[in-house]
């Protein structure tokens, strides 16, 4: 698996340890329904180096959010981890008890949810929520709590006077920032973000992304950033992982994927963004829909929509092939079969 350290990731803090912060191996998540079992995440493996920014990109039904929840051990029935491991600094989170997990949560790994309005408690002030989080992890001194709260708010560019504000009094952008501030209370090694910008407007999105990147470079934490909009992460992520129908279709350095997308889905996805610069050209997008995961197709899951589909693609599921630093799940890159 390609997992080279990003060249510009040695921030002030520097890598905290040798070896990857996160090692995900063959992770599978299933939904156990009355009608059958649906595999939302199928055998996903990847490494995350300290301080690395990994973006996970995909459309609805690809399993990216489920994967995120699986990594953070936040799945609830009927979803469950049906196989694989999630090793955080060497310890498999899947095997840990709730008590051991609680020690890891927020101190070493925190989560920023998609909609701050849903994640923040609407009836308590922002400062009170920070206090709750810190108390839950053993910080008892009121002074320390206040000092740290002010510090994290300043980090994200919010006036500390807003510790007294309620979530509904803040704008959308400020709410998201306070979520990020909360996630940073204990400067964890890894922050997982599930589409934190999707509720924001274009200008606020750009501003928030820049903020996240600045914080990351200053404090050296690793980031897993889930989004459906790959153009958003183009300039911010070190590596990019494209998911389709529960599987990883392509993963590698962001620059390489954008310059030379190998998987037909990645290429199609990139072409689906109309440009505001350059000539106006007709585009086709990717007609069709992702497959029904309750009855996944026998061969490649993208085959029905793939413009370069071969007979082999409909019969067998392709494994991942290594092409330089990029891993692609596509028969086009099978040297033995004579790929282009």
């Amino acid at each position: 698996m390609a997992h080279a350290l990003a060249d510009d990731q040695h921030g002030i803090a520097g890598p905290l340890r040798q070896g990857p912060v996160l090692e995900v191996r063959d992770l599978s998540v299933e939904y156990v329904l009355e009608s059958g079992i649906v595999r939302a995440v199928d055998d996903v493996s990847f490494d995350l180096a300290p301080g690395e920014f990994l973006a996970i990109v995909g459309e609805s039904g690809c399993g990216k959010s489920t994967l995120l929840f699986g990594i953070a051990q936040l799945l609830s029935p009927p979803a469950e981890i049906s196989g694989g491991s999630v090793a955080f600094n060497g310890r498999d989170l899947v095997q840990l008890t709730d008590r051991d997990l609680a020690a890891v949560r927020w101190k070493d790994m925190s989560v920023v949810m998609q909609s701050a309005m849903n994640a923040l408690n609407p009836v308590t002030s922002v400062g009170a929520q920070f206090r709750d989080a810190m108390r839950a992890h053993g910080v008892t001194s009121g002074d320390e709590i206040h000092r740290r709260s002010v510090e994290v708010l300043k980090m994200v560019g919010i006036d500390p006077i807003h510790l007294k504000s309620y979530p509904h009094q803040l704008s959308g952008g400020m709410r998201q920032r306070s979520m990020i501030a909360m996630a940073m209370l204990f400067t964890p090694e890894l922050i997982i973000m599930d589409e934190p910008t999707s509720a924001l407007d274009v200008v606020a999105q750009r501003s928030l992304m820049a903020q996240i990147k600045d914080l990351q470079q200053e404090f050296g934490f690793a980031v897993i950033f889930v989004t459906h909009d790959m153009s958003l992460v183009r300039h911010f992520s070190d590596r990019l992982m494209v998911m389709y129908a529960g599987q990883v279709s392509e993963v590698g350095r962001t620059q390489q994927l954008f310059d030379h997308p190998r998987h037909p889905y990645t290429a199609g996805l990139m072409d689906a963004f109309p440009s505001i610069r350059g000539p106006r050209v007709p585009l086709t997008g990717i007609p069709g829909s992702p497959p029904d995961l309750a009855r996944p197709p026998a061969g490649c899951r993208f085959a029905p929509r793939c413009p370069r589909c071969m007979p082999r693609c409909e019969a067998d599921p392709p494994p991942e092939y290594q092409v330089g630093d990029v891993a692609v799940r596509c028969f086009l890159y099978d040297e033995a079969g004579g790929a282009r």
Partner: protein
Amino acid sequence: MTEPLLRVDRMSEHFKIGNAISRRSTLHAVDDMSFTVGEREIVAVAGESGSGKSTVARVLAKIYKPTSGEVYFEGRPLSAIRSRRERLRYSGLVPMVFQDPFSSFNPAFRVSHGVLRALKLHRPELTKDQLFTEAVRVFDAVGLNPGAEVLQRFPHELSGGQRQRVGFAQALAMRPRLILADEPVSMLDVSIRIGLLNLMAQLRDEQGVSILYITHDIASARYVADRLIVMYAGQIAEQGPVEDVLASPLHPYTQLLLSAVPDPRAELNVAAHTDRGEPPRVIDPTPGCRFRFRCPLAIDVCHTQTPQLLPLAPGHDAACHVAQAGATVPARGPTPGTPGQPARETTTPE
């Protein structure tokens, strides 16, 4: 000069907010807006949330009544539409397609329900058999094949993209002249959006329908629209042929928007990083440009006088004191690429 299909004349829409106990303030959702839509034309109204763009669509759909100003359709004012027959006729000529493919259908009925009702209401001359045939025809026309089979499905059996196509089919069934599309692709997957955008262009070209395309995504506006209206805080900041506005944006807000749009193919533009502002909710506003708090070019007059929307180039208007003064506006926008086509005139069909 012939009367345009739709003419909005200084239309404002204000809402009273606050309850009976607190002082009643007025939210200015839309203020003093004037624009036109011609035949066979797609006009995009772009802006962030709170800009008033959705309110515009709702006023045109007669969901709200304008607080002041007037809307003329086919030369006749909307306020003159009183009788049920006239209202029905208008709603057939100016239907609306909604944003949310998940809630715009009644989950209890098959997707044929909406189309058949639309046909029954607006084309009473059709017999029962003809109703069904026509429903199949519009479904096929929007790319839902085979129409007869898709008609029998329930909404939850269709994908988001398919449901939006049904929305267009319903609109098409009424033989419209102008479709109000309120963010029709915002909730769809990126790879599906292009299909819907192509459909809209096809409806304009083959069916001769005009479309008012409300969106927050400037890139999609550029892809499909002939003219672009940029809204900020309830007012028009800039409008004109889409290529002109994007190639030489005159209003600083347009420039900010363009620099913030992520483009996978282009280099990073630093300008938008530093903007921390958010669009205001315009409550009991004072005179002056509403963008002045975020504008890097604001001068004294911007704080005291609300700028008027004035033409600064052929067909290209902007509401900005600085731009109007002819001051050098540094092009913060992207370096214009080679235009593939000349700017479209509003009345020349493709």
